[in-house]
């Protein structure tokens, strides 16, 4: 009876995954995308991603300190938010604005709701939505990919003095002798000028756009890695892409001269990074097997609707935020049918 007995209830084994491990691997999976972004847009992209990450992690750390709680930066989720936010802002985005957006991401997007696990919306997208509203011009100012001096100098707007308006980029572009760049992304070209961009170019990613959204191929590969490690719900990605493709195919068949091809829809803009890294955010997506399909389809359809009929040329952000808001309802309405389910209503009637 005197044996040191340690009582514990089953199960005594645990699976290999833990929250911090999953989050850490998402950050790893984002690294190739960051690298490509830096290769493509140069030093400005590097400091943009670093600033967002540092401010996000710092905000989380200091907020926890202020609350007298142990810091939660060890779960790596703030780092994901930071890296992702950096990747979905234009490379020329002034750093002080990026820092403000980062504080909003973590502060309002996540900590106001109660921190990891309680946020309704994807924090990175909350930050970007704020930036879209507050800094309308800089967030729609695009710079060309692969500018030749990108490793020697920063884009002039990067180091804008805080609370000052960013400088006009046209003199800088003229100096770099970039011809034929109209300051528009492939999506804007398509929407407003009906100019198509080669699918191959979109797939590889040598086009203008947000720092990390341009290479669909790379994003897809990184997503495949996470899906293989079972750290990402591939059904969400599949249903976003499938619904977007089908929905845009309907319009393309109707009038190919006005509407883009399904392939263009899938590879252009932020759809790929949204589907793979934003829509799949575990906290703000549904848990039921049917729920994730519905959720993904909402994102795909709403994205295409905004792109084709809205005032904006890009709609992934709002589509995901909308679907995030619908998540509790989706969860509620799609409870799985249990093994051996008996119809309760019938019994009550009889």
């Amino acid at each position, binding site marked *: 009876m005197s044996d040191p007995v340690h009582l514990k209830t*089953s199960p*005594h084994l645990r699976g290999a995954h833990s929250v911090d491990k999953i989050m850490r691997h998402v950050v790893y999976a984002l690294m190739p995308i960051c690298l490509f972004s830096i290769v493509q847009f140069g030093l400005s992209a590097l400091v943009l991603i670093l600033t967002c990450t540092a401010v996000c992690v710092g905000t989380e750390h200091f907020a926890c300190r202020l609350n007298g709680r142990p810091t939660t930066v060890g779960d790596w989720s703030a780092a994901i938010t930071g890296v992702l936010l950096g990747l979905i802002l234009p490379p020329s985005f002034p750093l002080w604005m990026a820092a403000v957006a980062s504080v909003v991401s973590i502060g309002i997007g996540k900590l106001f709701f109660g921190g990891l696990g309680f946020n309704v919306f994807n924090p990175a997208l909350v930050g970007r939505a704020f930036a879209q509203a507050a800094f309308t011009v800089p967030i729609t100012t695009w710079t060309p990919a692969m500018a030749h001096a990108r490793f020697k100098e920063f884009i002039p707007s990067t180091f804008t003095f805080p609370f000052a308006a960013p400088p006009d980029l046209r003199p800088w572009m003229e100096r770099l002798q970039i011809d034929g760049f109209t300051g528009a992304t492939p999506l804007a070209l398509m929407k407003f000028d009906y100019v198509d961009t080669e699918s191959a170019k979109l797939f590889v990613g040598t086009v203008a756009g947000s720092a990390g959204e341009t290479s669909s191929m790379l994003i897809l590969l990184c997503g495949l890695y996470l899906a293989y490690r079972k750290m990402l719900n591939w059904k969400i990605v599949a249903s976003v892409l499938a619904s977007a493709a089908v929905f845009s195919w309907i319009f393309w068949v109707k009038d190919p001269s006005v509407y883009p091809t399904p392939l263009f829809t899938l590879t252009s803009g932020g759809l790929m990074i949204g589907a793979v890294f934003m829509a799949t955010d*575990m*906290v703000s997506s549904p848990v039921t097997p049917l729920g994730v399909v519905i959720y993904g389809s909402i994102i795909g359809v709403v994205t295409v609707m905004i792109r084709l009929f809205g005032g904006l040329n890009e709609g992934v952000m709002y589509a995901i935020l909308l679907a995030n808001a619908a998540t509790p309802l989706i969860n509620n309405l799609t409870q799985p049918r249990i*093994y051996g389910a008996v119809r309760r209503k019938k019994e009550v009637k009889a």
Partner: protein
Amino acid sequence: MHLSAFNLSQFFGGTFSHGIHPAENKHFTEAKPIERLPFPAQLVLPLSMHAGKPSVPLVRKGQEVVRGEPIARADGFVSVPLHAPATGVISDIRLMPSARGPRVMSLILDVYPGDPQEVLYGAPVELDALSPKEIVQAVQDTGLVGLGGAAFPTHVKLTVPEGCSIDTVLINGCECEPFLTTDHRLMVEQAADLVKGTRILMRVLGAKRAVIGTETNKMDAVAAIQNVLLPNDTVSVKAVPTKYPQGAEKMLAKALVGREIPSGTFPSAVGLGVFNVATTTQMGQLMPMQRGVIERVVTVTGPGVKRPGNYIVPIGTPIRWLLNRCGFDGPAGHLIMGGPMMGGTVSSLDTPITKGCGGLLVLTEHQLTSEEQMKRYPCISCGACVDACPMHLNPCELGRLAYKGQYEPMAERYHLNDCFECGSCSYVCPAAIPLVQYFRIAKSSNREKVAKAS
């Protein structure tokens, strides 16, 4: 050939959906033949090692008993008798600690050293001459209970509720718990007794066919059983994909014959009778001679023992004695009775091996979840538990309600009572939320409320 069968069955619903794949860890003991150990000096025989009413002692303190002699009788229908596992003397009848904690009335049997320990009790019976009802009585007299762990009296399961008829007997040889190999070795070594027991069960229940179900990691067991089957036999053997909890009777029914046992009912509701391999094997051994359950096979395994193996020991063998024989010198804290997924820790090393105990597992610090792995996080709604739950419940939502103490909605809206506590949800949870532990608390709280209300 086996490989193709395996793949096909996977794609055509040869198993249930969901479930998990923990490391099997069967290599410690799966190739080790069942070994008989010498008798310990003292046996502890709790009067309630089965589900139902405790047995009533037939012996008094100081009485000599012979191996196989009934020493306690069944108290009513849902109860079984107890037989002396060894020749010796009843030295005391007193309260002894049980594995789960509360002390229970137990017979203490001092084994005579040097006794040949032959089983002298029992006489041959012509089973074919008995009516099914008489066989049910005969089964109760053997003291047989579910040896897979539930320890529910077998003869009660053989009494089919009115309005139900059994067409198929399922023999459960999945042993999906990691580490355990008791049923595996029984199927390999005692296939003839297993099939004999199966035929007895079929006759009592009036079933037309029987399927012995096992997993694809035990193909040698399939071969051994096929060896003793007749051509065009009504008994068949089938290996289903290895997955936890394949050995839960609801999962097995789905995997072997594609039937779902409706919520809140027993397998008999869909014409099935499900029995464990160890139970069926003992039935095949005991029934023809009308003997009682006096011993069982126990897998003593895990990295914490030096000589893991499958041992046949008398019922009532103290755990401490058995562990010493197997070279155990670690702290008692890492001892689990049963498998690692559903087994419990033991309150004291002085508790005995009971009829329902098929395994002793000694883990080391390494196997037990490390401190880092146990770090708790809030639920991140990853849905891993939803994808793991073999009952297709929503452990994620259940866990949130449990966290808020809303136990009643858990049962009313989210099917809490269909949870059979396999632990898959807790296993996969990356936030280390003790889901199944929450559910146990919720269930018992709900039971208390119902009891208070009535």
